[in-house]
């Protein structure tokens, strides 16, 4: 941490560092803010002549995210704002797991609430990526923290060269996939990361989810990659932040439905493949295929130099037993 940040009287970053040796309530969460898309607006009539007055904003978003200058009086301004997805935020969470079932119109939903104690905003703004992107100013309501609720598969660290295949099921064991939500690892190599593939066998056939790097991703220093493996469709995109810049990964193949992998010899997770552009040295650590908990920030109290107290609610949550049963 740079010396210009006032650590306050309690020095929250130091407390978190010390506490994490004694309690797993200190978490490394992933900060997520959804993309902000263009609003649907109209400035012209059916014959393309101008409407009087300002652009009419219909009040709903389009699926495009492009910058528009808004230079003329009745034109629209928009600054392209992709999703923010920044890892490595150390927070104290109490409690870690909060589950209560509610029967709602959408069915039984698992909800919960918790509190996060974070370092001061000034400290967070000095962290990797948070300080480097100009998209992040402060936490806002409806931002999300994604936590590793349960580490399902934690392969060993790797120091090797070239593409890496990490075996999840050995052939004598058949590990299920319905529990997992996301893949996370740290990587360091001079080569480009070209794709990340999760392979499985579903109904006896090989299936996969492949995230392909659309932007050049060269992690010469440790880079945290965290990508979802459910609720995506082919051509879905996600951002991996490196030095404050979002690098786009595109889901090029989505044939694997992890919920159907209940863990027998015809339905199991088989391997995770991290492909690179050449055969330089590669290091992988903190590899985690995990069940996530998504916390939506609800209220934010900022105690300036000391810490922030954030109340969050769990907005989405399904029951693992139903995933297994219904696929």
């Amino acid at each position, binding site marked *: 941490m740079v010396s210009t940040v006032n650590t306050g009287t309690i020095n929250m970053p130091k407390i978190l560092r010390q506490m994490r040796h004694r309690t797993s309530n200190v978490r490394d969460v992933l900060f997520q803010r959804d993309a902000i898309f263009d*609003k649907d607006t*109209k400035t012209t*009539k*059916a*014959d393309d002549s101008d*409407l*009087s*007055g*300002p652009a*009419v*904003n*219909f*009040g*709903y978003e389009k699926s495009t995210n492009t910058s528009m200058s808004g230079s003329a009086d009745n034109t629209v301004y928009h600054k392209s704002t992709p999703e923010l997805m920044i890892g490595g935020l150390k927070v104290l969470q109490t409690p870690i797991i909060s589950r209560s079932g509610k029967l709602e119109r959408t069915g039984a939903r698992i909800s919960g609430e918790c509190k996060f104690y974070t370092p001061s905003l000034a400290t967070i703004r000095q962290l990797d990526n948070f300080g480097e992107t100009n998209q992040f100013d402060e936490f806002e309501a409806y931002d999300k923290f994604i936590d590793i609720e349960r580490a399902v598969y934690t392969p060993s660290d790797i120091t090797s060269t070239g593409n890496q295949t990490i075996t999840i099921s050995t052939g004598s064991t058949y590990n299920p996939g319905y529990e997992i939500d996301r893949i996370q690892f740290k990587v360091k190599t001079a080569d480009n990361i070209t794709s990340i593939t999760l392979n499985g066998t579903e109904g006896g056939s090989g299936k996969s989810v492949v995230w392909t790097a659309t932007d050049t991703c060269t992690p010469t220093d440790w880079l945290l990659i965290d990508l979802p493996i459910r609720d995506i469709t082919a051509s879905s995109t996600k951002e991996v932040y490196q030095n404050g810049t979002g690098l786009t990964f595109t889901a090029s193949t989505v044939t694997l439905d992890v919920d159907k992998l209940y863990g027998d010899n015809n339905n199991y997770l088989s391997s995770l493949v991290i492909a690179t552009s050449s055969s330089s040295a590669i290091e992988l650590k903190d590899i985690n295929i995990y069940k996530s908990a998504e916390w939506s920030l609800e209220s934010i109290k900022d105690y300036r130099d000391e810490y922030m107290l954030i109340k969050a609610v769990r907005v989405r949550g399904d029951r693992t037993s139903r995933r297994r049963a219904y696929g």
Partner: protein
Amino acid sequence: MAKDYLNIIERALMMGLSDKINAAVTGDIYVHGQFPQSEDLKFPSLIVQQVSSGFEEKFHGDSITFGSSSTQGSGEVYGMNFQVHIIVDKDTEITIGSDVYKQRRLVNWLMLNIANSIMEIDWSVYEEEELQILERHLASWRDVGYIEAVQWYGATADFQIYFLNKR
């Protein structure tokens, strides 16, 4: 496949209202769908909120021809209910003619001119879609008043529109 009438009408209504009312003033009057985010809110603000829709009456029968077209179709009268809200900040000024209008005077002007604009909308000017509007009713303005906490003047009216839902 039926046309996307609800969106066509909602968009045309907002565009028509904005176009007509802004042509009559100096300064900008902002028309929003339901509801503007606080970052988007500018004054005076007119909010067109669709609150309900549904069948009104089916009297066209099934598999009949409409007009000169030989294509058979079905249709009925379909209704949409809107609430139109006016919100004017205490400091908002709009020049109408040579006079500057503010606060309750501006709300009064907006109430009558929104009603006029809605009755005069030529739907084909705003959407390149065949649209047969059968009736439109702007009920009385209500809740005309002032919210002290936010220093807003405002009013709300119910508005119904009936159209031929042909498919």
